[in-house]
């Protein structure tokens, strides 16, 4: 019934209103089914690859396959292929900002020092070695306990807290 309204519009504005009517690309049904099949194949690949031990490459491959799948969904199911490019820019920008979020957070956490509880000095979280900058050893009445431990282990220039037990005092 509203089709009728549209048809009359086509006739009335066909020439002077090029951008009047909605012109959305109509995707072929078979093509959409083909994309779905590709997504299923990629899902099988994800599961199959996870059964094989590739070390740290496992996560990389899983994320790569997931991104290809997400790309297929966004490009064809969500019509970005035939959409105004600005919508794609918005979509990509979400991942750019997410990348900034993840990169700087992980960069901070992997490089910042933390206070070694046994010695009261700044050490790298990842290997327990002395970290430059950050806090210097502070021995105050409030930190008396830490100070005593620090004094006990004063002989160690580079306090080596274990990788797996960050709170363990240095024992050699």
């Amino acid at each position: 019934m509203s089709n009728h309204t549209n048809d009359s519009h086509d006739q009335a504005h066909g020439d002077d209103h090029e951008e009047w009517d909605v012109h959305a690309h109509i995707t072929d049904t078979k093509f959409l089914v083909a994309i779905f099949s590709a997504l299923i194949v990629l899902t099988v690949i994800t599961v199959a690859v996870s059964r094989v031990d590739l070390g740290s490459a496992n996560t990389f491959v899983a994320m790569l396959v997931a991104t290809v799948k997400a790309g297929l969904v966004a490009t064809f199911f969500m019509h970005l292929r035939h959409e105004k490019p600005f919508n794609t820019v918005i979509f990509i920008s979400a991942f750019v900002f997410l990348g900034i979020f993840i990169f700087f957070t992980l960069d901070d956490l992997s490089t910042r020092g933390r206070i070694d509880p046994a010695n009261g000095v700044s050490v790298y979280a990842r290997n327990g070695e002395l970290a430059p900058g950050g806090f210097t050893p502070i021995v105050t009445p409030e930190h008396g306990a830490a100070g005593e431990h620090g004094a006990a282990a004063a002989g160690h220039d580079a306090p080596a807290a274990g990788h797996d037990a960050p709170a363990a005092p240095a024992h050699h």
Partner: protein
Amino acid sequence: MSTASSTEHAAASHGHEHPKWLAHHFDSPAQQFDTAKLGMWIFICTEILMFGGLFVAYAIFRGQEPQMFHQAHEHLNWRLGAVNTIVLLFSSLTAALAVRQSQVGDRKGTSRYLVLTLLCAFGFLCIKYIEYTAKLDHGLLPGRCFGHPWFGDHCIGGGAAVLPAAVHGLSTRAHMFFAIYFMMTGLHGVHVLVGIGVLSWVLMRNMRGDFSKGYFTAVEIGALYWHLVDLVWIYLFPLLYLVG
């Protein structure tokens, strides 16, 4: 009322009739359609960033304790996760087909595909329910009862008196993995529920005959939302169920 009359007035002065669904602050149906899609893509952007916080938490804690993540993820049922992945991918296909049928003016086809999409959404939630109850029964819900069945004697009443040193060979710190698991899949599950609401509304309007070849904005936007739900799950599945 005043909107309707001013639209009529504008239509009269233009010398042609406007479709009743064209809001009077838009020049043309094409502009209205593009504006709706622009708004939806910006919303999708904010949704990705909202999930982004949880993905960052995942990266931090997995980076700190990769072995714990690997051990803990083995308590998830990857087969059910894979089935749910296929269910969601299929529902994404049917949502895309619903839009297509709407574009060619096939009202019955649109309804049929929307109903299929909704059935998949309910199927997804049923499988999620099976998974969640298994986690609760195995004492894997993080919090004061971690390590004890949620409905067990230890937990009903005063809560778990003693946290077991190890849960099924897991370190007690495995509660971090399950906290992230429940938050990520939970937020995603809320989106599935919202998607069911949105698609039901679109289905209702479609059956009422609101849409046509020239106006199917709500079908398109509703489908975009549903594809977003699919997109998030595409990443959740390998990250939670297939930890290397």
